[in-house]
């Protein structure tokens, strides 16, 4: 079956053990106001335009007959500076597996593998499970918010070799406020993960005044118990991609 991805990143060295290639799944049920991959939110392909470098020649607005450009109000093959691009490619699991397998030798000798990130990979669980079946012999890892029903979570988790589960906010109300969803499912999946025999790590993004508060961090610490935990410092340039996909970076409004 087909899935929707928005990037394949080579030599990702902060996404699990060894040297990895990371596949970014498009679409996420959460709306964390600090999200640094806004192009991963919608599951639909969308335009990404680097407006800051645009000199307004308007070539992209002239009519074209490219099939790829049909859904959009612009031509994506017209910009001389290459500023107009589509984020989101629909791809067969088999074809994606073939692309990824090209890296297998390199990743295997370097103690690495493939990491699934996003967006939220669990949102395309059927696709992901199919993809995993094609990736035998390669170490796989997932970066997930854990937001999925337990059956879906189990189905994927049982098939990957390493899990990086984000626990952002312990308090349900605050979680809903800052991520758009309740954390009940996430905490249930956390319990499953803890009781599974899978190697995993809990990751906590440090957003000052939101996740990075002493109450929240100690509450998370209680929730995760003895689990290995990694705190992710926040990159202040994270908002850079928002204007490119025509979204507003809510965190900056919170700050100002």
């Amino acid at each position, binding site marked *: 079956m087909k899935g929707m991805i928005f990037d*394949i*990143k*080579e*030599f*990702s*060295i*902060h996404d699990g053990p*060894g*040297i990895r*290639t990371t596949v970014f799944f498009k679409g996420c049920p959460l709306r964390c106001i600090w999200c640094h991959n806004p192009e991963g939110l919608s599951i639909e392909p969308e335009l990404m335009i680097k407006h800051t470098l645009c000199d307004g020649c308007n*070539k992209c607005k002239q009519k074209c007959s490219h099939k790829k450009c049909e859904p959009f109000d612009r031509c994506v*093959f*017209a*910009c*001389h500076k*290459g500023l107009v691009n589509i984020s989101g490619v629909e791809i067969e699991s088999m074809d994606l597996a073939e692309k990824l397998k*090209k*890296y297998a030798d*390199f990743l295997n*000798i*370097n*103690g690495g593998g493939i990491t699934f990130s996003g967006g939220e990979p669990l949102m395309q669980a059927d696709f992901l499970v199919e993809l995993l079946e094609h990736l035998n012999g390669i170490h796989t890892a997932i970066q997930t918010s854990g937001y999925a029903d337990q059956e879906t979570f189990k189905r994927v988790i049982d098939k990957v070799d390493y899990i990086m589960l984000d626990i952002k906010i312990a308090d349900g109300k605050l979680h809903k406020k800052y991520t758009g969803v309740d954390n009940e499912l996430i905490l249930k999946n956390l319990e499953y993960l803890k009781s599974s025999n899978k190697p995993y790590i809990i990751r906590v993004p440090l957003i000052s005044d939101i996740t990075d508060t002493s109450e929240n961090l100690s509450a998370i610490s209680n929730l995760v118990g003895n689990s290995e935990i990694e705190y992710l410092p926040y990159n202040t340039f994270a908002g850079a991609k928002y204007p490119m996909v025509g979204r507003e970076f809510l965190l900056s409004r919170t700050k100002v």
Partner: protein
Amino acid sequence: MSELLLDYILNKEHHKFRKDYTINLANDYKKKGLSPVERMADRFERLTKAETPQLLPDEKIVFVRTIRNIPEIFTEDEWQDINSKHYIHELGYMSNLSPNYEDAIAVGLLAKSEAADEYGKRAINNIIALSDRYKEEAEKQGKTDIAKVLERVPRYGATSFVEALQFFRILHFALWLEGNYHNTVGRFDLYMYPYYKADIDKGIITDEIALELLMDFFLSFNKDSDLYVGVQQGDNGQSMVLGGVDSHGNNVFNQLSSLCLVASRNLKLIDPKINLRVNKETPLDVYELGSELTREGLGFPQYSNDDVVIEGLVKKGYALEDARNYVVAACWEFIIPNCGGDVANISALSFPKIVDIVVRKYLKDAKSFEEIIQKVNDEIKIECNRIADGIKDLWFIPSPFMGVIMDEIKYNNFGVHGTGIATAADSLAAIKDHIFEHKIITVEEMLEAVDSNFEKHGWLLPILRYNSHKMGNDDDYVDEIAVKLLDLFAEALEGKVNCNGGKYRAGTGSAMYYLWHANELGASPDGRRMGEAFGTNFSPSLFARINGPVSVVKSFTKPHFKSAINGGPLTLEFHSSIFSHDDSVKKVAMLVKSFVDMGGHQLQLNAVNEEKLKDAQKNPDKYPQLVVRIWGWSAYFVELDKEYQDHVIARQEYIV
């Protein structure tokens, strides 16, 4: 090493001792009718005499230049006359050689004098005389340690690590003062190790003291380096080679090699430029030490792969024990120390220019892409013939002192760089794909677009630049064309005999030609606009959309380097933030090791930060020590001309 000395040198306080040599020697020599070698011997004598011994604060390794300039030995008329009768390489002096420091340091200059001719003897006497004056100055100032060292060297062979280091400094100082340039350092950890080891075994030094000495010694390469000529400041060829196998095939990476990497990392200065020889037996921890140095943003170490280079050199006719002993010249050309007289950078072939000629002459009538490749082959041959035919009666200004410390010359090969391979391969791939196979572009459209710098048929530009096959994406469609180009280049030079009886070697380096050749050319069929540079050395095109460093490594390890063995590294630029985790040093080390295991020949890595570079262009005063790698050497960013600065900023940069 003392911070006092470091600050003293970084603040250029020793420049206050410098004076100009104002006497016009050339006119005098002409009047007296002196031969070139007599002139060189006389000038060296005058300059050594004019030098004033200066001991800098806390310095353990002495000798610093106090004469700023080296006066000409020929009048302009004479030089023009010489040029009209001979092929003169660059400035005409000996350069890019790796002399036998090992032997001189072991036996001493008096012993070397016995076998030297009268000019060599004279040069030796003059440098010993200057050393004696340094010794007297040291005694006068009560610096008995220094005086004691100079009591022994350079007259006699070194008997300790500090003597050996001081001896090297004197040899290097003398080579530069004689007028030679791009004076390399050679296999330092090989020839210095016995002195280090003996002192350690005797308990005279500890590793801590050895490191202090090394840092003082490394600092000495930076005292006068602004006086060393190059295309840009920093292009001075003080390349030090560490690791690799010895002439018997045994790995030599030793404790001294490690200390050198640490000394360089501690100092964070652009000289000496560190090169690491590696091979399939090199353990990951050596690469990790190398990556620790890369992290400092100095643009080195540069890695060379023994497994490829040695076999390639043997294939070219070098004796196995010589090939195993290879070093790099000023930048990356593989040369043989002691007995190698190769001119490793005598000329350069521009791959994009070849494509340009073929496109203009033959594209209209070509029936197939194979025909185009055939024409490319023909034009490469024509260009190689033109290059070879242009080099007749090569003549170098005789260098008596260099002659003393070089062995008998065994190799006289000429190296030819090959520039812009990615631009050329991408251009040919675009022609193959869009014109011959998918026919979405007509020949006329392509020709008019390129001729008009894409003013006409502007719609081609985004297709060619951003939606075409690009070398660096592990895409066989274009990578195979690049493999072919390098093969054809190597074949075209194969069998040619140069004017010194040697061979020609094809290479993958660019030197400054990535700007020069690019400026000679208009737009190209890969969507490169007029005025845009090529990638430096052996690298993807500047605007190509690249999947990432893994694909680059895979693409750029495909060609047959063993047949094109002049050198020229793949250059990878990483954003400096990659090194924010300690763990990432290890992962970069793994990437380098994989490159070597996959059969790459040479690699240099840069840790850069585009925002910082841009700020440094605006506020140079804020960044006096910001270092970048240029083509085969590292430099202080703010000291470069703007076009070289801009190129560094424009390069592919991987954020991970």
